[in-house]
């Protein structure tokens, strides 16, 4: 008897709960690392939390962390799609084909792929113009380096990373033509030990500024220990290396995530490509470290931020030559988004070759 009552009771509970949440949209995230990396994934997770706070009960969110960029990603994305999610954010470049594969199977589910360039009716792409931030730190590095050697730790040879290296170098060489950058490819986004090794190797070879395009704060920490300067990555990392950290390029995803989730709730979501920078607030600089940077350099950096926002300054202003000495951007012109999106070459002045 009791069992029967319980069964009936739970049946009604399920009905009432599902009625209550019938309109609630489920939004899923695929993360490349753990939200605790205090870098790339951390900022996406901050965006997710921002979205939850902004939209309240009209949405619920789920995330799967540490998803490798291989066939496992298909399984993870499909798992979210098959479990009733309405909108799925896949937050790393190499989820690109996997996202499309699942999107074909689930035409009613909306997908948002970060930093990619392949779209479908139900797949949007979005990215931030991180390279605008790289221009700022390049300028600072060019002015601050004493050894004229800058160490740059990178993950994988993809356009986003190479664009960052070029933007950084162009800005640094503009204020300091003697500047040299030493590049180490780690072939991983996240391996604190290896990132520390790379930073120490670069410092050992004479670099007095460490720049990173990997996700942990180990390089900044290594710089702190060795008494050289560094820039953080993706989020404000000053707490971990207060005497080395000059500034970081921060990724601000929250407002974009909230807008796209709102579009799904309203039924107005459409496939599009979004690429925003300083102007729309998707990229921000962490507070400049006044202990390390002279006031005039901070002012210059802030003016550059404003100029980029206004459109009076562009990270890729001609004339720009590639390593072979060919003119790729003419004088008076700027690189168009197509060239930036597929950028797989170094500009003139950078030593070494882009790995294939």
């Amino acid at each position: 008897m009791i069992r029967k009552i319980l069964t009936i009771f739970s049946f009604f509970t399920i009905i009432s709960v599902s009625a209550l949440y019938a309109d609630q949209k489920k939004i899923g995230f695929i993360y490349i690392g753990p939200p605790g990396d205090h870098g790339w994934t951390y900022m996406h997770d901050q965006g997710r939390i921002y979205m939850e706070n902004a939209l309240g009960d009209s949405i619920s969110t789920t995330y799967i962390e540490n998803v490798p960029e291989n066939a496992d990603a298909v399984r993870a994305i499909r798992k979210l799609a098959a479990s009733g999610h309405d909108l799925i954010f896949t937050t790393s470049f190499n989820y690109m084909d996997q996202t499309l594969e699942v999107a074909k199977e689930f035409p009613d589910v909306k997908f948002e792929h970060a930093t990619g360039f392949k779209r479908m009716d139900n797949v949007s792409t979005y990215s931030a113009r991180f390279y605008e931030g790289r221009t700022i730190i390049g300028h600072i590095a060019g002015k601050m380096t004493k050894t004229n050697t800058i160490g740059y730790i990178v993950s994988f040879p993809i356009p986003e990373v190479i664009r960052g290296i070029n933007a950084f170098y162009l800005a640094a060489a503009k204020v300091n033509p003697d500047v040299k950058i030493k590049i180490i490819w780690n072939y991983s986004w996240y391996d604190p030990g290896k990132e520390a090794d790379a930073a120490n190797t670069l410092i050992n070879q004479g670099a007095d500024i460490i720049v990173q395009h990997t996700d942990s704060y180990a390089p900044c920490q290594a710089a702190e220990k060795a008494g050289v300067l560094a820039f953080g990555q993706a989020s404000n990392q000053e707490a971990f290396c207060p005497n080395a950290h000059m500034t970081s390029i921060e990724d601000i995803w929250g407002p974009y995530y909230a807008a796209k989730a709102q579009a799904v709730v309203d039924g107005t979501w459409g496939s599009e490509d979004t690429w925003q920078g300083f102007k729309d607030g998707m990229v921000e600089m962490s507070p400049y470290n006044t202990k390390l940077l002279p006031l005039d350099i901070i002012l210059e950096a802030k003016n550059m931020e404003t100029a980029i926002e206004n459109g009076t300054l562009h990270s890729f202003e001609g004339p720009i030559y590639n390593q072979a000495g060919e003119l790729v951007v003419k004088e008076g012109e700027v690189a168009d988004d197509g060239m930036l999106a597929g950028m797989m070459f170094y500009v003139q002045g950078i030593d070494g070759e882009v790995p294939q």
Partner: protein
Amino acid sequence: MNTDLIIGILNIVLISTTPLVFAGIGELVTEKSGVLNLGLEGLMLVGAVTGFITLVLTGNYFYSLFFSIISGVILSGIFAFLVLNLMTNQIATGLALTIFGIGLSAMLGKKFSGTPIEGLNPYFFILISFLLVFLVSYFLSKTKSGLIIRAVGENHNSAYALGYNVIKTRYMTIIFGGVMSSIAGFYISICYAPMWQEGMTAGRGWIALALVVFATWKPWRLLVGAYIFGGVAIMQMNLQAIGVKLPGQFFNMMPYLATIIVLVFISSNKLRLKLSAPASLNISFEKNQ
């Protein structure tokens, strides 16, 4: 090349290779007694997070190391109970231990991730790691207990018939291996990259496992192998920074490739395989046989 540069490179090699030596030498002793423990990665991560949390809470490096070791004793004790008393499959249990360790360390460390700490000087542990290889080498070849461990690993039935306590011996070696792995984890989160982030050992447990095979179960070769792996990784970074073009992906798979080559080499000759691998490795021991 100037000497400062070379000393700098050696310094980085020493710092980055030491966790491999600790975890590898522990696993070597475990495997010498005939037990394959694939849980190194999990043990290292739990050791790393326990040490980190203790340091954040107490600010004492000694407690931090102590609790890190305790975590290794507990986890490897559970592993030993499963494979020795309940006779579960060693490979499956070891993999489960790794997966469990990854999850447990992430859960424990969630609140502590991103807490800045003061790192510990690594040189003491680097010194200990060399000493350890010497002691283990001496212990396995020159002491009675060492010979008993090897006898148990070669043929547990004969060792049992001679009156040696197979289960007890293997408990000891498994727990020794567990403690060494947790010290490797402690070293990573407190000395090497002083921080806690999920999954921060990034596959070093697997490289340590590969090392044991690469070293054909010999302590000194393990030390040499570890420094070859570590040295190659750091050298390729140095060459990259100088501007030499190198296939970085290739160097990432080097440790595993080298291990496969050694395996092929020692497996090509039955006798050579017999001389190298403990014969009872990965075989459960039943008393009533």
